[in-house]
């Protein structure tokens, strides 16, 4: 039981203290409902990096669904809950199908358009009572006892908030949570680890919508009436403000942000008409200006300033790593035939052919701008050749996207380490084993994934141990030195237990001893049957390690052979040192 949970339980009991003003309780109810919506935004915006202005609109779906069920159709208010979740979830799926593949600001802008459209929809539909909305909703009741008292509502809201908090925390501490974290800046790495980015985006959007739907249902029965205004764009902006204010990456920040916004709002509504006369909408000025000041002064929000919050989650300790999958039968693991790639007028790769065998370390070298990185991207599915063929473990993999390549047993590291900033070292490594887990998001929320998680983390720990970084497992990933971040990338690749390992400049930034250890590890991996392809600039390292070398210049292979042969090749010497001018 964590501290925030204890605080929440205390908050549920607090309203029943004798002498507690009911007005405070009703403010607390507003805060609780808002915090549930803001918690969805923590997942969506803070963790997954997608900005949404339409959460209020989604909440409206929940609220109107609740009102239709309980008031228009006269069914039990409790039936309104699944209806509310269904309505907001379905709306999110439909919106998501249309807009989620858009990048950052297009997505945010389209949620503004959605926000405006939904408001006008609520205002103009007869069945929703147009501008007046629907009123006279029955209160919730338990065993015949009608929960009319605000303190009774507070219990329902408190329990909802608590359950939302636990569910969200569980979701974030699962393989899905790691995938969601990767949506912010780690997309390419996650895709290479086999994460389906579209699916992960939809998960974040729908999950946030479900929380908004729950909040809508609570709101409808607390107010006993539903009208379009609380679900418009301004309200949507306010929920985003709550999340940003509290600290968009932190769950408790949602409660903090909601509390500040609701209290300030209430205070402004009481105070400002006295100062400026009625009819002045000063809270919009304060919130709008507040948002701007906040982004300039404290872009990470207030929670990390208040609590020395470690975003690092606890993870299960397991002893048994996952068994290695059976190795492919083909001896030729990776084969490229006549790959061509041009960008506009520039030919980046011309007629590249190479093959990588089981148990082999192949070095791909060449001077700057020779086309190594492009070749590497073509081989790993990040980019696709204009012509030519890529075979992976006997399967034609030409044109396959990175996640499919991962399924076929390919793992890679990146030249610029692409670790996910919000995750610890071991969580980054566990992301590499994403495909080796099977738990669904629902299982994660219900914590039915613990055994599997333990195995995933044991696998990750083992991979970390192999690169010598087990001691750093719980540090934030981006706090490591650059060379060590590269090693974490290699561990992430190893966690997938790949048949083919592609490494982009693994030795850059490593100290001498670390290089020796890395070379020993790679030799050991090759001896166990893995095929290793590395692009490397450190000649000493690659010459002493690789079985064979392929040298590129101007996108074409200029030499291939053993390190000794390459060292003697005049073409290679000229490509590197240049002909004397």
């Amino acid at each position, binding site marked *: 039981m964590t501290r925030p949970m204890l605080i929440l339980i205390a908050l549920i009991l607090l309203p029943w203290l004798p002498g507690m003003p009911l007005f405070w309780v009703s403010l607390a109810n507003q805060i609780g409902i808002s915090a549930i919506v803001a918690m969805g935004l923590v997942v969506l915006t803070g963790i997954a*990096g997608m*900005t949404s*202005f339409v959460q209020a609109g989604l909440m409206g779906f929940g609220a109107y669904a609740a009102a239709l069920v309980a008031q228009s159709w006269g069914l039990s208010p409790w039936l309104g809950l699944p209806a509310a979740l269904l309505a907001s979830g379905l709306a999110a799926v439909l919106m998501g199908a*249309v*807009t*989620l*593949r*858009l*990048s*950052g*600001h*297009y997505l*945010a*802008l*389209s949620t*503004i*358009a*959605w926000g*405006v*459209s939904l408001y*006008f*929809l609520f205002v*103009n539909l007869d069945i929703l009572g147009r501008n007046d909305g629907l009123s006279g909703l029955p209160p919730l009741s338990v065993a015949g006892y009608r929960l009319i008292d605000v303190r009774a509502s507070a219990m329902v809201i408190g329990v909802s908030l608590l359950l939302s908090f636990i569910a969200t925390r569980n979701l974030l501490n699962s393989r899905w949570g790691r995938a969601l974290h990767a949506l912010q*800046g780690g*997309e*390419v790495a996650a*895709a290479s680890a086999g994460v389906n*980015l579209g699916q992960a985006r939809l998960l974040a959007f729908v999950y946030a919508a479900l929380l908004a739907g729950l909040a809508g249902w609570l709101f409808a029965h607390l107010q006993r009436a539903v009208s379009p205004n609380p679900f418009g764009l*301004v309200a949507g*902006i306010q929920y*985003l*403000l709550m999340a*940003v204010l509290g600290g968009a990456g932190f769950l408790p920040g949602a409660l903090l942000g909601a509390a500040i916004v609701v209290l300030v709002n209430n205070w402004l509504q009481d105070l400002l008409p006295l100062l*400026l006369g009625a*009819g*002045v*909408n*000063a*809270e*919009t*000025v*304060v*919130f*709008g*200006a*507040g*948002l*701007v000041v906040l*982004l*300039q002064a404290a*872009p990470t929000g207030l929670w990390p300033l208040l609590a020395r919050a470690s975003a690092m989650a606890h993870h299960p300790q397991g002893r048994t790593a996952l068994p290695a999958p059976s190795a492919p039968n083909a001896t030729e693991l990776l084969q490229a035939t006549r790959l061509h790639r041009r960008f506009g007028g520039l030919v980046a790769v011309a007629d590249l052919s190479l093959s990588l065998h089981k148990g082999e370390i192949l070095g791909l070298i060449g001077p700057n701008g020779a086309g190594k990185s492009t070749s590497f991207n073509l081989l790993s599915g990040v980019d696709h050749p204009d012509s030519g063929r890529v075979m992976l473990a006997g399967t034609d993999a030409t044109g396959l996207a990175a996640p499919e390549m991962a399924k076929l047993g390919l793992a890679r590291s990146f030249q610029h380490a692409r670790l996910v900033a919000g995750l610890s070292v071991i969580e980054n490594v566990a992301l590499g084993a994403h495909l080796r887990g099977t738990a669904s998001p629902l299982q994660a929320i219900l914590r039915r994934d613990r055994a599997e998680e333990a195995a995933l983390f044991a696998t990750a720990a083992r991979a970390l141990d192999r690169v010598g970084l087990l001691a750093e497992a719980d540090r934030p990933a981006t706090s490591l030195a650059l060379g060590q971040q590269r090693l974490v990338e290699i561990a992430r690749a190893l966690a997938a237990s790949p048949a083919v390992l592609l490494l982009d400049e693994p030795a850059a930034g490593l100290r001498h001893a670390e290089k020796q250890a890395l070379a020993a590890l790679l030799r050991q991996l090759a001896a166990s049957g893995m095929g290793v392809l590395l692009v490397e600039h450190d000649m000493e390292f690659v010459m002493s390690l690789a079985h064979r070398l392929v040298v590129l210049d101007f996108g074409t292979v200029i030499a291939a052979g053993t390190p000794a042969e390459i060292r003697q090749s005049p073409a290679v010497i000229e490509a590197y040192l240049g002909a004397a001018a």
Partner: protein
Amino acid sequence: MMDLSILLALLQDGVVSGAVYGLLALALVLVFAVTRVILIPVGELVSFTALTYAGLEDGQIPEALPLLLALGALAFLRGALQDRGRSLGSLALQTLVLPAAIAGCAVLIAPLHAGIAVQAGLAIAVVAPMAPLLYRIAFRPLPEASVLVKLIAAVGVHLALTGLGLLCFGPEGARGPAFSDAVLTLGPMILTGQAVWVIFCTTAAMAALWAFFRLSLAGAALRATAINRRGARLVGISPDRSGLLAFWLAGLIAGLSGVLIAPLTTVYYDGGFLIGLKGFVAAIIAGLGSYPLAIAAALVVGVVESLSAFWASDFKEVIVFSVIIPVLLWRSLRHCAVGEEE
């Protein structure tokens, strides 16, 4: 039932409002290309100009003057804080002296009923400088922030300006005087003088912008900043000053749009938002990149709006904003969004 003359009237309405949306789309594309800011508050500048223009017809001293002066003072403080006191003189000139001079002129000219052209010019002069002031206050301190953070800041500015607009102008709407009351009858089509004026002014403004970008070195420098910020710095163009210039142009365009729209419809303090948002729909359809495409898209938006106002007036806004959906779908099918920015 719809007959030809109604259809022509609707088309005329659509083209007229589409032309204004097109102007705003240009401003949005320009500001985004140069500064990566999605200028949501452009709509407030439109409604503030329209209300100021309407007020000037009654000889009223512009109600936006305190706002202009306050923004100037705030921009001065923010600028002094950011530059730690460097070049305070030029900062004061632009943020304190210029707004004060405009305010002085406005107080003198407003009661004179100096004619529609002067009133329109004065309304633009009062509101347009707010755009560069807002740049100094809200966006200049965030030069390296992601597009998303700048967008959230822009939404914050929009929210604050809406509240300030209510404070300045009150909740009542107003309608400005038409430039011309002439009515031409061309067969089944009735052409209003105001429509001709709107189309003339927007075309002239677009031509002027085109000439500025294509022919002048300052315009080329602005384009260069949009194309390659680092390259621009390497030839000595300050991206900061380019940003300021882009906001000036956006302010002037928004001002012109406000004056053009004032006689066509009753404008409220918060009414500009929806107008601006339709400019956005056009700008987004054009991928926030192409000027001609943005203008074409704006005309489509205007016509769709006027036709849907006739057939399903309640759902007019829903329909207009839904135009965006097929376009977004098409865009998302065309290219995957992975790692496109940041």
